């Protein structure tokens, strides 16, 4: 498993994603991108849909990418990487390429949960050899914090604002990790920017497969979550500790929860640190809404425990 030392050495040897980007101060995306790319030894080709990472890393004539990288549109990164991988296989068969090359997508939750879901599902079903990493910051941050299907219930987003009549986003967030797992691909996981070694280990385990692989990484956006710029790691950590964002894997159909918090930390502890939930602590309806959020966290955690129990690898 890659240690901090190994990851640091690979970064020193030649950064695959360099400092020449314009992501916001405090953005968690570069940490995830660097950790994922440093956890892969082979040469990689990266695809990204339209989004924060794309806009901030590829402003012509500059680029922050030291690896081959492609962007085409918002909804099609999984289709684009399918084509790249298919060309690789074809050229390999013809003897025009002999080196092993791996394929990685970095996409936001909008480009994954919403507009890119069809292309992702198609690529998973076809079985291309690629790793899809969702940099999940739970809203359309690039365009100004609009709600996505990854946005948590009752968070305030610019297209689902807190208002007198409706207190934020009324709907529950989509459980994309489980939707992906239902495709029957060999490796699916949830990770968080707060647990980088866990993430690196997951990437390494994933890359053993020459099939589709998917990791949903909770990637704090201080701008959209309205938290301090130095809070990205702490925010993600609280999400894990409150069981809002469990770290787990589904390897060949077997569930494994990578971290079970010993104490039951109420989700309120996480909510109260973020501006996007501030209204829940001012509005008279807030208590009830927080209780609903907690009930949903508990329901999903219990379900996950049950899945691990029924479909666990056994320890």
């Amino acid at each position, binding site marked *: 498993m890659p240690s901090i030392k190994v990851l640091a050495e690979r970064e020193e040897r030649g950064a695959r994603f360099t400092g020449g980007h314009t992501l916001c101060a405090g953005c968690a995306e570069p940490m995830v991108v660097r950790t994922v790319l440093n956890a892969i030894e082979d*040469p*990689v*080709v990266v*695809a990204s849909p339209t989004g924060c990472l*794309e*806009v901030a890393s*590829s*402003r*012509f*004539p500059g*680029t922050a*990418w*030291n*690896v*081959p*990288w*492609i*962007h*085409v*549109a918002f*909804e*099609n990164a*999984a*289709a*684009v*990487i*399918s*084509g*790249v*991988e*298919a*060309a*690789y*296989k*074809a*050229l390999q*068969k*013809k003897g025009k*390429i002999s*080196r092993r*090359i791996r394929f990685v997508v970095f996409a936001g939750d909008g480009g994954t949960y919403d507009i890119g879901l*069809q*292309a992702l*599902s*198609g*690529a998973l*079903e*076809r079985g291309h050899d690629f790793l899809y990493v969702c940099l999940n910051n739970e809203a359309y941050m690039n365009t100004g914090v609009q709600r996505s299907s990854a946005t948590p219930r009752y968070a305030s987003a610019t297209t689902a604002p807190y208002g007198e009549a409706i207190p934020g986003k009324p709907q529950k967030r989509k459980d994309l990790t489980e939707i992906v797992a239902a495709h029957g691909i060999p490796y699916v996981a949830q990770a968080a920017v707060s647990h980088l070694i866990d993430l690196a280990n997951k990437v390494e385990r994933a890359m053993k497969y020459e099939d589709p692989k998917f990791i949903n990484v909770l990637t704090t956006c201080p701008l959209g979550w309205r938290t301090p710029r130095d809070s990205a790691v702490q925010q993600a950590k609280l999400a894990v500790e409150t069981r809002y964002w469990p770290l787990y894997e589904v390897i060949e159909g077997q569930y494994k929860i990578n971290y079970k918090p010993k104490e039951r930390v109420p989700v309120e502890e996480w909510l109260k640190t973020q501006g996007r939930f501030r209204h829940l602590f001012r509005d008279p309806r807030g208590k009830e809404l927080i209780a609903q959020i907690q009930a949903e966290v508990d329901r999903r955690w219990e379900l996950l425990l049950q899945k691990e129990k029924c479909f666990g690898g056994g320890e």
Partner: protein
Amino acid sequence: MRKAITGHKAIAEAMRQIEPDVVAVYPITPQSEIAEYYADYVHNGLVHTELVPVESEHSALSACIGAAAAGGRVMTATSSQGLALMVEVLYIAAGMRLPIVMALANRSLSAPINIHCDHSDAYLARDSGAVQIFCENAQEAYDYTLMAQRIAEDMNIRLPVIVNLDGFTLTHTVQPVDLLEDEVAKKFVGECKQFSPLLDVDHPVTWGPFAMPDYYFELKRAQQAGMEAVPEVFRKVQEEFSKISGRQYAGFFEAYKLADAEYAMVVLGSTAGTAKMAVDELRARGMKVGLLKPWLWRPFPAEEIAEALRNVKAVAVLDRAFSFGTMGALFEDVASALYPLKQRPILANYIYGLGGRDTTVPELVRAFEELPKIRKTEWALRYIGLRE
């Protein structure tokens, strides 16, 4: 080798001979047979293409873009709503300067939904930056599919090329087609020329960057230069192809009995065949008529078309699609082309054949016969075969 095959089979045979690295395709009537033939070739080991059976046309072209940027030779095919779904990424394929050859089985756009031929799908992609070629018959569809590969991959062009063939009329009818020997076709098409492929991991490149007002304009101007390079390459490729095939392709359009014509018709696709019969019938009766059938529609060969039409008295321009709110797209092309002339022929614009409505020889004869009675060019549509 002469075979009796459908337009689809002709395209599929050209694709088999080209043997692209990647074919990403999604079925739609009336294009599906191309996808079926090609899947059959792949599954029986006749070709070593990676077939990507995508979940939509949007993904078909997206996968083609990825594969082309990776350094592979790629092809796809679609029709109607499929092209409509692709259009977003078709503009991007052109903007990224990626050579992707695509057969378009021309079919009307919804609504109402209809599976039969008109050119509304091709017109939708008119300003996409893709090169567009129109074919009169299955032979031309086969020939231009082979030629399209050379045009798309030319280092000065690097653009997607659409080979249009009329849905059902050409795709599903059996016609005699002369196929080249495999080796001859393969030699003509040649090896795929790569440009900064993604898979060259030792020389990493960034494909599809973000360009702000400081560079966007220059990059689009460079794309226009790619289009401007098409005519010269098109002629060279035609010349070379004529030599190996024995079929004469010389120029951006076919001029049929046009040299001494007083009245002319301009029409795209299979209806040109019907128009030739109308020309023959009227010539037999002593009326000096001729036909101009563009092969190359985008880029539009304006100067050459103006030269070919400069001495006629009147021209009927036929559009097989509305450009709602204005005249037909082909009419506007021809009108613009003629504008610099001191003495311009009179023009009339006919909309015909929408949603697969049949267009007959007598109808085209009547359109020709109407021309001498038209006193001036009017900004008003006329219709062929419409019940009003």
